[in-house]
């Protein structure tokens, strides 16, 4: 019994990490249909900047805010310098540009920071919390809380705020959006800044668990991407559920089947879901009106 509970807690811990990364894909995808493959690098920047600022003597909360602000600025620069000049290019080209940006950011981080693994202190200590014989670290609760909070914020943003609706309108039809007075360029910049900030926040929250280094981005973005696809790309609830589901499948497979097949089973489930529901679990069917 305590074993099952431990697998579940592990799955939720890992799943919350995936969900947090997956949520970062949502905004940029919604406004531009681009899957931003530099999303993992924002997670890396969040962790690395926080660590180096913290080591330089800045208190952890301030260091985290600094990291999020810097990452958001990098997001804006990415849009202004790489995505905007390529306006009008097909989505596939834009995706390739984000891959290039990811390689560039990784190389830059290697030079600006270093090539070592880093970790900063957990926010509420490292004493495990005991739940009926199974344990979870306090930092995992921070990650789960972070994922849920960002999910709520995104949901509110899209459903209740004018800006959120403007972002969706831009995504739907750029020209029509500008005809009703929305500035599509501003909306795109905003979504890049916010996506980068969400990525950096994810980096701040998960680093005490996953550790961080300049090349962390690729691996973490891949799992986040898988989670987002599973739940439905661009849909906040999809990212949250997809991430948790992926984490739970991995943990339960490692526990009951074999740790060798952990990733394989997770990806088979992903493939099966996408085969039956190409838009992901929560994806809307796209209909083109002619």
């Amino acid at each position: 019994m305590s074993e099952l509970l431990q697998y579940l807690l592990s799955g939720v811990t890992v799943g919350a990490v995936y969900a947090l990364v997956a949520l970062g894909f949502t905004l940029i995808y919604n406004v531009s249909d681009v899957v931003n493959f530099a999303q993992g690098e924002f997670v890396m920047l969040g962790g690395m900047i926080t660590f180096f600022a913290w080591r330089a003597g800045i208190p952890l909360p301030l260091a985290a805010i600094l990291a999020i602000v810097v990452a958001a600025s990098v997001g804006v620069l990415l849009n202004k310098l790489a995505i905007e000049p390529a306006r009008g290019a097909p989505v596939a080209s834009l995706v390739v540009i984000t891959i290039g940006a990811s390689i560039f950011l990784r190389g830059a981080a290697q030079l600006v920071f270093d090539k070592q693994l880093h970790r900063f202190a957990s926010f509420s200590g490292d004493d495990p919390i005991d739940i009926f014989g199974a344990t979870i670290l306090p930092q995992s609760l921070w990650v789960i809380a972070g994922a849920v909070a960002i999910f709520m914020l995104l949901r509110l943003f899209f459903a209740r705020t004018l800006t959120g609706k403007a972002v969706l309108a831009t995504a739907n039809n750029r020209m029509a959006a500008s005809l009703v007075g929305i500035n599509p360029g501003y909306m795109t910049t905003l979504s890049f800044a916010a996506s980068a900030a969400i990525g950096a926040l994810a980096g701040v929250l998960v680093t005490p668990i996953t550790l961080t280094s300049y090349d962390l981005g690729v691996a973490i973005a891949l799992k986040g991407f898988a989670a987002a696809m599973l739940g439905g790309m661009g849909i906040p609830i999809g990212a949250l559920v997809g991430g948790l589901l992926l984490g739970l499948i991995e943990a339960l497979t490692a526990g009951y089947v074999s740790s060798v097949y952990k990733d394989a089973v997770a990806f088979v489930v992903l493939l099966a879901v996408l085969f039956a529901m190409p838009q992901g679990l929560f994806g809307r069917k796209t209909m083109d009106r002619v």
Partner: protein
Amino acid sequence: MRLGLLGSVLALALGLASPAFADIKIGASVSETGPASSLGDPEAKTLKMLVDEINAAGGVLGEKIKLFLYDDGGDPNKARTFATRLVEDDGVVAIIGGSTTGTTMSIIPIVEAAKIPFISLAGAVEIVDPVKLFVFKTPHTDRMACRKIFEDMKARGFTKIAMISGSDGFGASMRKQCLQVIGDFGITVLADETYGPNDADMTPQLTNIRSKADVQAILNPGFGQGPAIVTRNYGQLGIKTPLYQSHGVASKSFIDLAGAASEGVRLPGTAILVANLLPDGDPQKAVVTAYKTSYEAKFGQPPSTFGGYAYDGLRLLVDAIKRAGKADPQAIREALENTKGFVGVTGPFNMSATDHLGLDLSAFRMLEIKRGDWALVQ
């Protein structure tokens, strides 16, 4: 082809124009950047530092060493290209490098064909087994690390263990090597778990291990962040079974990353980690202290085991050139093969025609983490 010819002519012209005509040319290709940069970076730093030191002290046989250092970024294709350039354009008499097994393997055919002695800095036993005429290496093999660990387990009376290995190249290779030699020690593996190199949580695997009551010790062959996370999870689950890590994480940063849970963890490490703990009579004390002192003075950080491989590689080469009396590849090769009683920072080297590594288990020290620092076992 024409480009290659042009390159050679250019290199020749430059070579003739250069005043340092009589220098002893030594080549190196290490992974200063890229995924293996934690290995290649200290190696490159060490090589540059040691060449400067040797030249400042008058060089070798009255001639200065000229180092041709390339960064292959961990890419076997680049390593191959650089090895070709070192042999054909730079005209080196020996090559050091290949930070990883992959880059080393791609350099080997080039040096064997060109008959240039090559000292690899990578771990795999395949590099020197079977013996290749011109290929040597300085790091001990994974198999030796396994033997050292099993020796310690046997001494403590452990016969039933669990393994949790990384599925990356290092972890998978070491797991295989350990399983090959484990029978010699009468130890059996009750649980054989694995994890991905980027996994964030290994509690399910450790929970499975914990549920097997007979397990007396846990071994974690791995590299990078995996072992640190395994150790943290081991602490989180409150497991009391002794934990062994591999030489892959033998650096001070592992203790920082793994935190309080690393207390009592044992692993095989080299003398360089515990230079200040070595007794005065220890044969390696002098060389290890010399390396540590100059590296720390120059770079402001403690040296790693990997830098030590490069330090030994270049010193072995210089020693061989001195004994050969001339900087001729064939003579250097023969002198290298006859290296006897050479004390390096990695261990004492005794090479022969059948052993191009020359280290034995005495190169490894069994270390235990006590109060956040290394301690020598026994």
